[in-house]
């Protein structure tokens, strides 16, 4: 459990708050590059860390991210005209370039030179991995971009989706590091009940997860602190002399990489606070060795795994709170534990059901919640350190993010970090 003060420190993300300042020390994903696809295209509203912003791509292809509201009369620049290297407020004609400088103020006498003195709050952007990233912290503390493999592979090897989730980022992130929920929330009824037919099916399966999760329902958890965050290792008995290991990566401030089996594509998430009560979920799937397979593309199209379809414009998932996430009670009775289609919607339904911000003073944790406890403690330590003037080392160590997750079977005498070392280094 956490104290109320700790819970507030982790979940409040506006400027000046603990987690809010911490996130502002990193480059964070702001929007898809495809949301501002071409020079002088329409501007896009975006809310990040409690701030209402406007993004636009100027005539030269540069992306600006600035306060949504014109400093003159606070009109929204969403109605603005994106023209000749700047966004012009259509109320009185003030125009701003991507750095936030007012470059034209036609309603004021030119001799006042007022336009040279006016700026709008603007944040730097970078285009990387098909996304527009921004740094919303102090300009003299510009971090390094994280060297993540999914952002570095060719476009054809990667698929990234973005969706809105209507709860605080932390409970969503905690779902990402909590591997013990997958045996229940994402399971079929047959797998949960361990029916004979299911056992027969998975005995010969090449899917290690399906096979060994069944054989050992009481896994052992290990966490290891790293330069970039945590490795969360879960060990299950496999054969007589072997263990099945699954290593999840948690990368500061809020990324995960889901354990993957060699030969398959790799998946992960990033949770970015939109404000204290909503967050953006970025989900990435990539294959370091080649274009995504038809199987991957089908899973994306059919929403069977980590991606979910969204409403254009709002980016709210089609299955959402207002339609009970499309729950099918007959499917739940006969086939899947939730009756909700797709892992992404299953996670969303459960995490949103916990309330917009979970009251962690009343929860009941156990030893299977080790990864959640570790993630919170690490974030709290980092936030406390920042409050005492110590900048987060990971924000300036982009190279340390060059890692993968993994899952594999190792002899019982081999330590996981030794046995998995090579597999956990990224390749691209």
């Amino acid at each position, binding site marked *: *459990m956490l*104290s109320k003060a*700790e819970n507030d420190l982790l979940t409040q993300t506006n400027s000046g708050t603990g987690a809010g300042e911490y996130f502002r020390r990193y480059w964070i994903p702001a929007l898809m590059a495809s949301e501002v696809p071409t020079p002088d295209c329409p501007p896009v509203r975006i809310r990040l860390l409690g701030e209402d912003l406007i993004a636009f791509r100027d005539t030269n292809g540069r992306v600006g991210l600035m306060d949504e509201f014109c400093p003159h009369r606070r009109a929204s620049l969403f109605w603005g005209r994106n023209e000749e290297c700047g966004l012009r407020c259509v109320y009185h004609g003030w125009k701003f370039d991507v750095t936030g400088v007012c470059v034209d103020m036609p309603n004021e006498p030119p001799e006042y030179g007022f336009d040279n003195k006016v700026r709008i709050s603007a944040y730097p952007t970078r285009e990387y991995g098909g996304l527009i990233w921004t740094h919303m912290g102090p300009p003299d503390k510009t971090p390094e971009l994280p060297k993540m493999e999914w952002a570095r592979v060719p476009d054809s090897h990667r698929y990234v989706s973005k969706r809105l989730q209507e709860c605080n980022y932390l409970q969503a992130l905690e779902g990402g590091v909590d591997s013990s929920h997958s045996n229940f929330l994402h399971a079929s009824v047959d797998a949960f009940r361990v029916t004979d037919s299911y056992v027969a099916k998975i005995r010969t399966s090449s899917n290690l997860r399906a096979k060994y999760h069944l054989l050992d329902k009481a896994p*052992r*958890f*290990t*966490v*290891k*602190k790293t330069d970039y965050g945590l490795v969360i290792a879960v060990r299950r008995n496999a054969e007589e002399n072997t263990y099945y290991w699954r290593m999840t990566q948690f990368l500061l401030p809020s990324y995960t990489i889901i354990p993957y089996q060699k030969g398959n594509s790799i998946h992960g998430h990033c949770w970015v606070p939109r404000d204290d009560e909503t967050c953006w979920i970025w989900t990435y799937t990539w294959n370091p060795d080649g274009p995504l397979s038809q199987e991957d593309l089908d899973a994306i199209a059919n929403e069977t795994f980590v991606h979910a379809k969204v409403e254009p414009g709002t980016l709210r998932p089609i299955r959402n709170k207002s339609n009970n996430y499309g729950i099918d009670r007959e499917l739940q009775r006969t086939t899947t534990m939730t009756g909700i289609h797709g892992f992404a919607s299953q996670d969303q339904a459960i995490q949103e059901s916990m309330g917009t911000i979970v009251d962690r003073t009343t929860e*009941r*944790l*156990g*030893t299977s*919640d*080790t990864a959640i*406890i*570790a993630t919170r*403690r*690490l974030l709290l330590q980092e936030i406390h350190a920042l409050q005492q003037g110590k900048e987060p080392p990971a924000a300036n160590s982009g190279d340390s993010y060059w890692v993968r997750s993994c899952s594999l079977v190792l002899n019982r005498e081999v330590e996981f970090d030794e046995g998995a070392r090579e597999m956990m280094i990224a390749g691209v």
Partner: protein
Amino acid sequence: MRRNPGHIVSVADFSDETLRAMVAALEVSTEFEHLIYRESELDAVWSIAGFALKDEPDVVRREMIARLKETALLAHDLVADSRPREAADALKTLL
């Protein structure tokens, strides 16, 4: 009893045996990882005590469980503050 601080104590109850194992682990914990395991054990014993308290009809036992729960919370917060030895001392008062 010397324990490996890298192993999580199996917490199925709040018996003296369980508490002794937790104390022994707290006394040798030094690293971030160890403190995480200790916190998870204390979370578990606090949770179990909370459930037991709800169903306990005997007044004397209720008081004992309430004290244990309170002490587990104190020890939990000491571990969160990187003070495992003091947390061990707190738990010892229950034995």
